[in-house]
């Protein structure tokens, strides 16, 4: 029995005035939630830390006017959104439920920037956190090693956020809709060498939701979920993420496809280097080549394999627990011909890739027309 996406909605991502209730109301305008829905699965990374909110299992249904529906919160760090979607898929595939609402929501902007950085660093292992590491500084170390090993230049890496903003400028729901240049990226302040401010995704608020059921326009062809050790210094490799490789293999196998069959994808570009490494771990590009291929335009809107047509985490925004569903929303729009100014013609199979923690628990989702 197949599982489909019936309907989706997403609010404008950014620093929003309202809280959870207002953000949900904005999102719900676009989606058709059926009268009879068997469950609501909510993905949110840290509602208590970022928003001083607890008990989402009761709050979300009431805010949606669906207090009669059973609801649980699913936490998988920054992959909470896609993981909630996966759980909805599994529930319907099992035959126990007919339709499930999967939603991802996060409000990060109420806290000061320094607090947000500390909260995001809580995903790391204790000793790494005790030494003052952040996901950003770990990504910077990975970036330095990658650039050195594969000869990737600064202006080649800068192409990634330039592309993100180009696509974001065509996305009315993106947090950032202004284009930037390679020069802008290289002149932006250094946050952790060699990463600059414009290589990093922003602090965002947002929500995206999907109704999954036994019929719909977009089929969930395959899902995958891979993991790795929490502690970075214990890993065998740091230029490649086992969690992505396993998730990709599972999803490709379930969907009965190979990486060549993917027409379009959304990958987890929390930092520019992550987009490059992820495309290699997904086997869309060969090891060491994704940075240079991207700089040549192969992943742009009219390239061979458009990547992050939404603007990605960088320009569309990164409301951490919601991101996974924001990615799925973009592929849903592309497959149903609703991506307007950034529509890619002829797309039949799309992929999303979402990371939890520092590539500790990653998901891959394959969707088809």
């Amino acid at each position, binding site marked *: 029995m197949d599982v489909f996406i019936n309907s989706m909605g997403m609010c404008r991502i950014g620093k929003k005035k309202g809280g959870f209730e207002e953000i949900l109301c904005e999102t719900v305008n676009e989606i058709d939630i059926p009268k009879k829905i068997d469950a609501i699965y909510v993905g949110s990374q840290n509602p208590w830390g970022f928003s001083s909110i607890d008990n989402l299992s009761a709050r979300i249904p009431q805010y949606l006017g669906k207090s009669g529906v059973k609801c649980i919160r699913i936490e998988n760090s920054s992959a909470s959104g896609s993981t909630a979607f996966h759980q909805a898929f599994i529930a319907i595939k099992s035959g126990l439920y007919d339709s499930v609402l999967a939603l991802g929501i996060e409000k990060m902007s109420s806290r000061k920037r320094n607090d947000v950085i500390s909260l995001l660093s809580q995903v790391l292992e204790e000793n790494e956190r005790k*030494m003052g590491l952040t996901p950003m*500084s770990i990504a*910077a170390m990975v970036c330095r090693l990658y650039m050195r090993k594969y000869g990737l230049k600064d202006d080649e890496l800068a192409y990634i956020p330039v592309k993100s903003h180009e696509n974001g400028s065509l996305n009315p729901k993106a947090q950032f809709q202004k284009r930037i240049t390679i020069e802008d990226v290289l002149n932006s302040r250094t946050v*952790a060498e060699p990463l600059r401010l414009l290589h990093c995704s922003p602090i965002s608020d947002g929500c995206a939701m999907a109704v999954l059921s036994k019929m719909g326009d977009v089929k969930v062809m395959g899902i995958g979920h891979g993991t790795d*050790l929490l502690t970075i210094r214990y890993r065998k490799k740091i230029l490649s993420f086992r969690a992505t490789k396993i998730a990709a293999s599972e999803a490709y196998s379930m969907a009965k496809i190979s990486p060549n069959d993917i027409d379009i994808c959304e990958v987890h570009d929390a930092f520019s280097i992550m987009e490059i490494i992820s495309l290699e771990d997904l086997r869309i590009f060969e090891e060491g080549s994704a940075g240079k291929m991207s700089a040549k335009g192969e992943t742009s809107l009219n390239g061979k394999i458009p990547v992050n047509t939404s603007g990605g985490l960088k320009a569309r925004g990164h409301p951490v627990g919601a991101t996974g569903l924001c990615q799925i929303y973009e592929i849903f729009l592309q497959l149903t011909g609703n991506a307007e100014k950034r529509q890619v013609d002829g797309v039949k199979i799309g992929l999303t890739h979402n990371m939890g923690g520092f590539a500790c628990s990653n998901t891959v989702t394959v969707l088809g027309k």
Partner: protein
Amino acid sequence: MQQHCHSTRKINASKCDCGMLCIPQEILCPVCRNKMKKIKVDGCGIVKTYTIAHVVPMGFTSPLKVALICIDEGLCIAYFDGKLSVGERVYLEEKDGLIWIL
């Protein structure tokens, strides 16, 4: 990357029969959960990568200079002052459970 180098300064580590090396020490192996042996490794290694972080969590001062070092058969995180380069051989010391590049 296993480089044999020597130092009179020792770093506390723990080793598992499965091959895992942990710095700082762990009681149980993070991979197979068997009891680890407490050992000391020579305080020297090769710089795998590093960063100078200007964005730091609360309680830390910027810039924060950290490196990932290949030591014995594992990796450790160490602070450094001044400049560093990938592939450089460095000497390490342990102060209050934190590793520093000399």
